[in-house]
């Protein structure tokens, strides 16, 4: 991915109950993004659990790095981290029980999109995936013995299909 594309990102503040984005900040061409309670940050979150400067996102050669700057730290999947490489869809929490944010590559920044009749594409903000919830549900399904049996059965059926196809090939050659 070109560096330019990496520079187009969005941060979503997630609703803690549902995991839906309640606020989105979009950035383009920035190399450092500051997150904290103070007004001068790029992302200001007014919450007592958030430090004045809580975290920074830095664009490195290999992608975005999240660096903890505050007293309460950053949690990724429930574990405190001082630094974390960010991939698309990665969620992180500002302090224990603090607000949850999601890092996303966004395809086109809102202000650059030409819409047919000027509709703001941020209307798609509600059309998102709560990756954590999805992963939990998927793990629950694929972890069960039923899914493993199903995979085996699917493999068997695919093999049968191939056998049928070869048989039809052979019959066609005969006729």
């Amino acid at each position, binding site marked *: 991915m070109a560096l330019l594309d990496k520079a187009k990102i969005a941060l979503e503040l997630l609703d803690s109950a549902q995991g839906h984005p309640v606020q989105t900040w979009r950035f383009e061409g920035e190399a450092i993004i500051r997150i904290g309670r103070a007004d001068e940050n790029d992302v200001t979150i007014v919450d007592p659990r958030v430090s004045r400067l809580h975290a920074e996102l830095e664009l490195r050669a290999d992608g975005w790095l999240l660096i903890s700057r505050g007293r309460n730290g950053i949690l990724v999947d429930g574990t405190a981290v001082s630094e974390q490489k960010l991939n698309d869809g990665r969620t992180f929490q500002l302090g224990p029980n603090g607000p949850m944010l999601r890092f996303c590559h966004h395809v086109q920044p809102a202000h650059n999109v030409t819409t047919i009749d000027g509709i703001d594409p941020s209307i798609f903000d509600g059309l998102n995936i709560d990756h954590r919830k999805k992963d939990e*549900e998927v793990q629950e399904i694929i972890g069960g013995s039923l899914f493993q049996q199903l995979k085996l059965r699917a493999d068997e059926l695919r093999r049968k299909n191939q056998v049928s196809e070869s048989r039809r090939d052979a019959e066609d050659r005969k006729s």
Partner: protein
Amino acid sequence: MAKKRTIISTHSFRGGTGKSNTTANLAVLVAKAGYRVGIIDTDIQSPGIHVLFNVAEDALTHTLNDYLWGKCKIHEAARDVTAAAIGNVDDEAKTPRLFLIPSSMNSNEIAKILAEGYDVAKLNDGFQELMDSQQLDLDFLFIDTHPGVNEETLLSIAVSNILLLIMRPDNQDFQGTAVTAELARQLEVPNMFMIVNKVPPGTDTQALRLHVESLYKAPVAGILPLNSEIVRVASAGIFVNRYPDHPFTIELKKIAEKVLEAGSSPATPRS
């Protein structure tokens, strides 16, 4: 070399996405391209696709239910709906042909399935027999699946060469479809496409397409507009026939082309 036979599953996380209608119209477009196509309605609990082909309930001699109870062969449940679906085709013509394997509309039959369930393995034997059937000699088989994630749906997805995931621009649809898409990846479905249906007028479809592709990491086969006419035609035939130049039909044709394209490539690499 025998001709390539392709199984396409159409699935949606919830009901009401227009799945059956999209499936029926796609199947017609693919058949019209000169193929022999089957549609099997595995939405046994709430069947409905037969309505689109004007198949009267009392005219259903055999259904998928009869096959599942061991009362008939699966090809005996297949009805040639070419005349209703495509129109004037010579009876002797090999292509285009469209066959429908309907589920029973009889409420007792539906109640029986709900109460007793059925052998999912038998359903999959049915797919196999359909693809092998010399009488039907299908090029494409569309499986209209039951919404949601359950055993028979997953197995239908697993045996497909192509999976079409249909959703509306709606948060619940987006979330649920993400689960199905991930399961399909685990099941190694060779081709997966997203279809967004019922998209309101004025939506920037290109931006929506990019948004969906970045969310699901899968290609979007089509963005179908919210279509008020389809509601009116719904129970009286096939939309693409009646409105050949409608934006809905034009977009659906692009999806049909993707199906034809993906169908012509081998599903699994041959050694």
